[in-house]
């Protein structure tokens, strides 16, 4: 009697080029998978995909919107890459974004109706500090009380949203706003300068780009970056090497929180211009996909943030032109992550089929 035996073995030699190439395979598989879904829904798959991936960026306005959407995703994902590279699972970037926006927005309201070149930088710094403080909570609890940072950071998302709710409904609500839960519009000095007339793309993109270069430098050219990477590969090795684990955990969470906080400030001082209850369509969570799709590499993250933003814009145009439900955008994001994880699995493990003779065992 012979049975087929499936054996899973770890591969020892994974080529780096292939490692950076699999995200592209995942994207291609997502496009194929998307085409099949559109086909089964009764749409012409080629036409649907064209509306999804080409129409949104076929003009300057669309392209600027893509950059606008990618800016916070890129910035948050850069911050997260510090955490993830060092095996710290910060899932609460959404909360850090929200709290950063609260602190930054508070400063903006403080300077309501005032002009001055110093106001915007103050708001950005305040936002970064806000995000940092909020990220320090799970970091301190992890280092000193051994709590699980995944749970703590995730639960804090809801805390931050409730604080925001309280503020925009209550003490910070616009006195002329008919009780609607939103603050006043920020004054011009508290708004990100627009790069072009008529487009919404703003100076926040430079913060994201600066973050990309700084993170590349820190991760690949400094001792701290080396520590982060070693801890990520093996915590034991890091311990033997005598790295101060606790300080590093605090630092990566602070970097991550500051980036998320600045992303929040970019949204409220950029396209939104005030605080209200929905300052982010879950950028903090989507950025987790972006970070992994970008292989936690600063330049990979730029690329990944553009791809993921396109799935958002594509979902809107596909609905406008073909009336495909907008939720397909989330399906696409899910598929990208699924195919990426699946191809990673196949990249790091090989599957062996063996013939296995049970009778032999009995003798």
């Amino acid at each position: 009697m012979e049975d087929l035996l499936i054996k899973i073995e770890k591969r020892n030699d994974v080529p780096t080029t292939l490692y950076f190439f699999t995200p592209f395979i995942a994207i291609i598989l997502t496009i194929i998978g998307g085409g099949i879904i559109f086909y089964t829904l009764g749409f012409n798959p080629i036409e649907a995909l064209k509306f999804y991936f080409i129409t949104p960026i076929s003009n300057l306005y669309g392209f600027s919107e893509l950059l606008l959407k990618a800016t916070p995703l890129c910035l948050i994902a850069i911050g997260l890459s510090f955490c993830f590279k060092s095996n710290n699972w910060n899932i609460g970037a959404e909360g850090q974004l929200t709290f950063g926006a609260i602190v930054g927005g508070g400063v903006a309201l403080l300077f309501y109706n005032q002009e001055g070149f110093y106001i915007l930088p103050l708001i950005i710094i305040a936002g970064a500090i806000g995000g940092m403080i909020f990220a320090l909570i799970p970091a301190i609890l992890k280092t000193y009380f051994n709590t699980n940072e995944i749970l703590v950071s995730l639960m804090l998302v809801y805390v931050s949203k409730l604080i925001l709710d309280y503020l925009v409904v209550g003490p910070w609500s616009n006195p002329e706003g008919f009780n609607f839960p939103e603050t006043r519009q920020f004054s011009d000095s508290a708004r990100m300068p627009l790069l072009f007339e008529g487009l919404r793309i703003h100076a926040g993109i430079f913060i994201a780009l600066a973050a990309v270069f700084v993170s590349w430098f820190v991760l690949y050219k400094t001792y701290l970056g080396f520590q982060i990477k070693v801890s990520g590969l093996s915590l034991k090795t890091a311990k033997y090497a005598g790295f101060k684990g606790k300080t590093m955990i605090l630092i990566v969470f602070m970097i991550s929180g500051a980036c998320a906080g600045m992303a929040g400030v970019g949204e409220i001082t950029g396209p939104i211009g005030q605080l209200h209850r929905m300052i982010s369509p879950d950028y903090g969570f989507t950025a987790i996909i972006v970070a992994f799709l970008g292989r936690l590499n600063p330049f990979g993250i730029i690329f990944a943030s553009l791809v993921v933003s396109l799935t958002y814009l594509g979902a809107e145009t596909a609905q406008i032109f073909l009336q495909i439900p907008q939720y397909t955008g989330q399906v696409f994001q899910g598929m990208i992550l699924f195919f990426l994880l699946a191809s990673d699995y196949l990249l790091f493990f090989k599957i062996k089929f063996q013939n296995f003779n049970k009778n032999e065992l009995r003798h």
Partner: protein
Amino acid sequence: MYKNFLRYLISAIFLITFSISAKADFKVGFVYIGPTGDHGWTYQHDEGRKAVEAAGIKTTYVESVKYGADAERVIRQLAQSGHDLIFTTSFGYMDATNKVAKDFPNVKFEHATGYKREHSNVSTYSARFYQGRTILGHIAGKLTKTNTIGYIASFPIPEVIRGINAMTLAAQKVNPNIKTKIVWVFSWYDPGKEAEAAQALIDQGADIIMQHTDSTAPVQTAEKAGIWSFGQASDMQRFAPKSILTSIIDDWAPYYVERAIAARDGTWSQQDTWHGLKEGMVAMSPYNKGMGADLVKEAEQLQKDLASGKIHSFTGPIYDQKGNILVAEGKVADDGMLLGMNVYVKGVEGDIPK
């Protein structure tokens, strides 16, 4: 110099793309806050859209568009992709609608339930839902045994507070001991939160549930608990056949068809519309016979009187929670007061979130 040149160049490209993408076909776009399958607010707007489509005019919709940065892009995309008239069907789209309207003077915009008309191509429209609330209040006041009415509210804006007050005043008229308990969910559509709110109100002794939110979760919760409820925005009867006494129906179809045809024929002009039972923008679904034949008759009579103007939902004397007079005896509240309403009347429990 160079910088300016670049700016002009980009603006020029920008404008050219706009003019190319404009098409000859007359098209109407709709922006929805919830999914078309909410069987409440958005569902009714989509029924209106279908009526426009049936009148031979092409339509497009985008559902579940969040307030904030996304709303402006979606509205802009609709304007840019050749839509000539755009309905933005939630209060929170107010600023985004006006912003986009400024850049597209040839496109007409209609914003539901808002008050800002910053450009001549923006109209606003809403319905006098409070008239329906008066009928609900009358029925609830007669039927409640615990004298406690549970009210699931969305945002503390005048529109919602007006509904709470209209209901409470009508209930007090037939039952002076009535109390209105409110739970704020701070969302228009969140079935989970709405169901929890309904349960919380039932636990606090409410034996009639009504809502100013869009999902069917509250009426379903009421059905399970075996108590009365009222549907909102759309006829929700099939989701809670025993529990629902009646639903306030928003009927946008005639208005949408009229405005779409006016825009197509070039007779559209800016206006601020506030229609009610009289014009049919607010309607009541068939009354549940379980409330008793007499009460059905009373409700139908009240509906007629509200439509004809014989009865006004806000007739004095009306007092606020502290007992200060808001509307004197024999007077009725004017539209200005109704539009800015931001205090509870006597009999409502709790404070407006501030």
